[in-house]
């Protein structure tokens, strides 16, 4: 199981409070995790990745193990600590004012 931390707005949207856990079919990658997340919580479709292009939305970032994974290829393996469930995969909104 992959642990995923969502930003506050997306937790509200998905009607969850804490971390969520998703199971992925193949080797855990960003794409696999986000696909599983959107299958479990369809209301999140389009909020993290653009619905047409599949690209990460500009002001969304992916962190894990104190690293910024936002620019990693979507099919790159996730860190072993995330795969083992010892660290969460963090989705967050970039700092922005207003």
């Amino acid at each position, binding site marked *: 199981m992959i642990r995923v931390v969502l*930003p506050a*707005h*997306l937790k509200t*949207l998905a009607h969850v409070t804490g971390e969520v856990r998703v199971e992925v079919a193949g080797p855990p990658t960003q794409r696999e995790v986000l696909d599983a997340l959107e299958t479990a919580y*369809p*209301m999140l*479709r*389009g*909020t*993290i990745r*653009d*619905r*047409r292009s599949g690209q990460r*939305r500009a*002001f*969304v970032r992916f962190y894990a193990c104190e690293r910024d994974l936002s620019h990693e290829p979507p099919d790159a393996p996730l860190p072993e600590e995330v795969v083992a469930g010892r660290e969460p995969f963090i989705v967050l*909104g*970039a700092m*922005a004012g*207003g």
Partner: protein
Amino acid sequence: MSAVRVLVGTRKGAFTLTSDGRRGDWTVDGPHFGGWEIYHLTGSPVDPDRLYASQSGGWFGQLIQRSDDGGRSWTTAGNDFAYAGDVGEHLWFDGTPRPWEFKRIWHLEPSRHDPDTLYAGAEDAALFVSTDGGQKWSELSALRQHPSGGAWQPGAGGMCLHTIILDPANRDRIFVAISAAGAFRSDDGGASWLPINKGLRSGEIPDTDSEVGHCVHRLAQHPSRPDTLFMQKHWDVMRSDDAGGSWREVSGNLPSDFGFPIAVHAHEPETIYVVPITSDSMHYPPEGRLRVYRSRTGGEHWEPLTEGLPQSHCYVNVLRDAMAVDTLDPCGIYFGTTGGQVYHSADGGDSWAPIVRDLPAVLSVEVQVLP
């Protein structure tokens, strides 16, 4: 006694304001979707408990929310707004071609006949329709693919389709308006479109009476006179009596004919309301005095309505979707400001009072009369 529910979309959430038909004591509920931009919150004319909200934000994009119980609970509807066919290009601010790109939904217009059918006006300008309560959307692409489409350019607020009027007398007729392309009409349910901008003159474009390129801010229509349309253009208040076939200016004695919303009295089709704003470079009322102007003659002759509105040091704006009228008698008028006030008049505009003063900047106001 009937009740009134005002639906308010703001920069940081949605609010509902309710009262009995006397419209004296109000209950404020919200925010719903706190922190999100709610460009529009509206209800079905055939099922007032069916509400739709356009929820968007810079981080997480566009969502559509639906309520079946008058806003007590909400479910997320569909947000797959895909431009049909070859996406094509329009003109960017600098005159270079740029592919159409979906940004947000500005306006939702529920059908007059079916609570599951609604239209959505998008930025970049396009018209979408759903027939299943907002789950699936398809583009009425003939509008965007009109031969003039490649020449459309955004206004300062983006190239947005912000006004949708579903004709009450002719189910096949739809009017839309786009900043800064102009007004368009379909007589076949959206299968084909005609620019309806004859008579408009805009000093901001090189050919001032061009077929397209006009920054139309808002259209309004009275249901008893579907061929009469009123328009608040960037500058100029305009009127058409032939379903947009031709327009004439009716700005008359307004202190400024720049503004955003325009509305028609529910029972008097020649009584119209605008909120004059100083200019396109100064988005606040002339002289810092917030005045609604009313014409009882369908334009040309206007009177300022000031009782209960701030007449000094007021520098708010009233956006294009932020004015509405109810169908009670006397007719109620409502508008919201970028300063977060929602004002109402229960006497056709003679006097005004704030319902609430300190909301986030108001983007849209709609009103429902409930049994």
